[in-house]
């Protein structure tokens, strides 16, 4: 079970690039896809979900080009798009039955599976209520359930925790982690803490290009010794922001504690601290050229 992305590009009208020469090989586990807005994450997700075609390069699933023979992948694919809809006059039960038929599940299997999934996402009691009256979070859970209908080998989830409350987010992250054993899970988000919690690998995209692909601990190691905390008067914060890469600020009684990314101490009072994944991400996003070289 492997997903190989080789030199994939996606060019839109007007010479706009969604992806450029993007290559990545993915095996079982959770790959966290991180990048700023417009970096090309959703474009990549849509290509992997077979609903968009690359303008260059290939994507193979177990050796088969998914652009030429998409149905092989589609039968084992679970996809939760960032912006998906539901039929408001159907109940979650009916909606999932409909999608189970679309995914090719037979009736007994589908019925059993849907019951399990409705319980899993805690919508079993609301299964006969129309989706039109559901809140955003409840709809998102229906989306999660549909993505798991066919026990996917490849699960692609785009901003899956949008609309979920903090507790739901934690549960969903755990679910992804539990699911990842024998399958590939691709999780796209710009919430670094979501990725930090579950990803076995992290890929960072900037302006359509892959700038980092590594295990979280390797990313952290790369910024080891480059993260500082520095207490300065609040009047000096603007100057610090222009001189250094500031990842966070905390207001204190005696000034502002600034978290700075820098190769050497930004000032005599600065002390080194343990880097977080957010620091590593900001470092990678800020210096894509370094990463490429």
């Amino acid at each position, binding site marked *: 079970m492997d997903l190989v992305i080789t030199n994939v590009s996606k060019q839109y009208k007007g010479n706009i690039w969604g992806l450029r020469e993007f290559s990545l090989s993915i095996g079982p586990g959770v790959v966290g896809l991180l990048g700023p807005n417009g970096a090309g994450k959703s474009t990549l997700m849509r290509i992997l979900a077979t609903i968009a075609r690359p303008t260059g390069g290939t994507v193979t699933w177990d050796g088969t080009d998914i652009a030429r023979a998409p149905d092989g992948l589609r039968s084992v694919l679970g996809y939760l798009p960032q912006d998906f809809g539901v039929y408001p006059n159907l109940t979650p039960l009916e909606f999932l039955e409909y999608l189970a038929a679309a995914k090719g599940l037979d009736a007994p299997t589908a019925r059993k599976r849907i019951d399990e999934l409705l319980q899993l996402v805690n919508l079993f009691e*609301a299964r006969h209520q129309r989706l039109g009256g559901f809140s955003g979070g409840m709809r998102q859970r229906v989306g999660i359930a549909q993505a798991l209908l066919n026990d996917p080998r490849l699960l692609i989830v785009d901003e899956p925790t949008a609309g979920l409350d903090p507790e739901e987010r934690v549960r969903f992250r755990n679910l992804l982690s539990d699911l990842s054993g024998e399958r590939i899970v691709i999780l796209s988000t710009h919430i670094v803490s979501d990725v930090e919690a579950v990803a076995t690998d992290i890929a960072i995209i900037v302006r359509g290009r892959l700038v980092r692909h590594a295990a979280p601990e390797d990313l952290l190691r790369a910024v080891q010794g480059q993260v500082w905390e520095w207490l300065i008067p609040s009047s000096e914060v603007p100057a610090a922001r222009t001189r250094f890469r500031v990842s966070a600020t905390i207001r204190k009684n005696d000034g502002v504690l600034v978290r700075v990314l820098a190769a050497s101490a930004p000032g005599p009072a600065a002390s080194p601290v343990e880097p977080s994944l957010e620091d590593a991400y900001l470092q990678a996003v800020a210096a894509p050229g370094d990463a490429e070289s």
Partner: protein
Amino acid sequence: MKLGRTLYHLIRADVLERTRRYSFLVTVVATVYLGYLVSEGTLGVHLGGYRGLRNSAWVGMMMALCGVTFVSLAGFYVVKSAVERDRQTGVGQILAGTPISKMLYLAGKTLSNFVVLGVIMVVLAIAAIVLLLVRSEEGGFDLGALLGPFLFLGLPAMLFIAALAVFFESVPWLRHGFGNIVYFFAWTALVVVPMETGLQSADVLGLKMPMDRIQSDVRMAVADYNGTFSIGTAGGGESKEVPVRWAGLRWTSQRIGYRLFPVGYTFVLVLLAALWFDRFDAAGRAPARSSRLRSLGNRVGGGAMARLPELMIRPLAALVGHTVFGRMLLAELRLMLQGLPWWWHLVALGLWIGSLVPEPAFARAYLVPCLWVWPVFLWSAMGTRESRFRTDQVLFSSPRPLGRQLPAVWAAGFLVTIGLASGVWLRLLAAGDFSAVFAVAAAALFIPSWALASGVWSGGSKMFEAVFIMAWYLGPINHNPSLDFMATTDTAIAARFPAVLLLIAGSLFCGALLGRRRQLTIA
């Protein structure tokens, strides 16, 4: 000043959004085609064996009358989406939070609708100029006589239709399918009531005023004229009609004054619309969140996925991959029929039972057109539902979207079509009228194929609704054999029209497949 600027930008943004859509191009092309049909004589104003000599006055009036008649019907469906688009895109919620009043917003939407309908009128006016230049039967070119009917008949009528569309969008129970059906009858009333009552104030479309004038002028010119006046297809063809010179209508202040009635009604309609308009208040939208769901929400909300550790889902791969076309078809059929109000089913049942009573030939001629206009808004959703409800990404990434889901949509449409006509069809079968049996079956195959192709290629339901209603009125209702796509007449059957329908149905289905394939690959 500020108000005017706000109104201008409301109209501007809406018009830009509409005219940059593919469907606007389709509308313009359809209008050009309407102009062509009038120009080459398929459509026109007919006077019982007579017609007007093609001069500036007649060509302008004929094109304007055809335009007002058909655009007031089809155009309503074309423009009736201005408020709904804001609802669906979420822009409405943003606007609702601004100081724009309901009246101003709805006035903006009315004027935006009017711009679109006005463009249609301009296209028809250009078609009239071209027709006069190419096929004039009398020397001279009187621009005033040619364009007067568009200005004084067409534009006020279009303004009224623009406001009526906004009114329908503002009243909750007229907003969707039911309102679309109601409008057809309302349109019939708009045409018929002024003719029957003679009231100028009821003549919002402006058909009666020229009709009276033309009838009296032709009576003066031709002794055996029987007073017939019809707008539509020529019974025996334009070539068999005798041309009569018509000098035109003088636009007196009284006549222009009569045309201010629709303008006044427009203000009233916008006012009434503002009373009903919910200002995008989601709480007022159906289906409402039931009290049961609210109480469930409290239970299913907080502890979402709480039982996760004990409830791991079982592996399933071995059980996946069966061909389940039947289940897909049932699911599509349910999707098509779900959410329809009870009275829709009741009327459908009533029509179906009604089709069992008269002679099969009578039922085919008169009841099949009624049975087959009832589900027009079910058909028009075919091929567009996925994008409208944003389920396309999930469905298109499922296995065999072309081989399973799209044929299932078509088959569901076919089942609804043939199901509604099944009473007539089985009785024709029992009577041994096999040519009629074939004709009804061919029509039942044609309609969903047309709807699906139209939905997939146009990306919306408007085009099918507008063209279907117009074709239905011109063909099956008027029993015009050349447009009788429901095969209600023996003439159409004798001319092997059903076999042609079958061929077109096949082509349209292939076209729908190609269109969906394009949707799957161009993203």
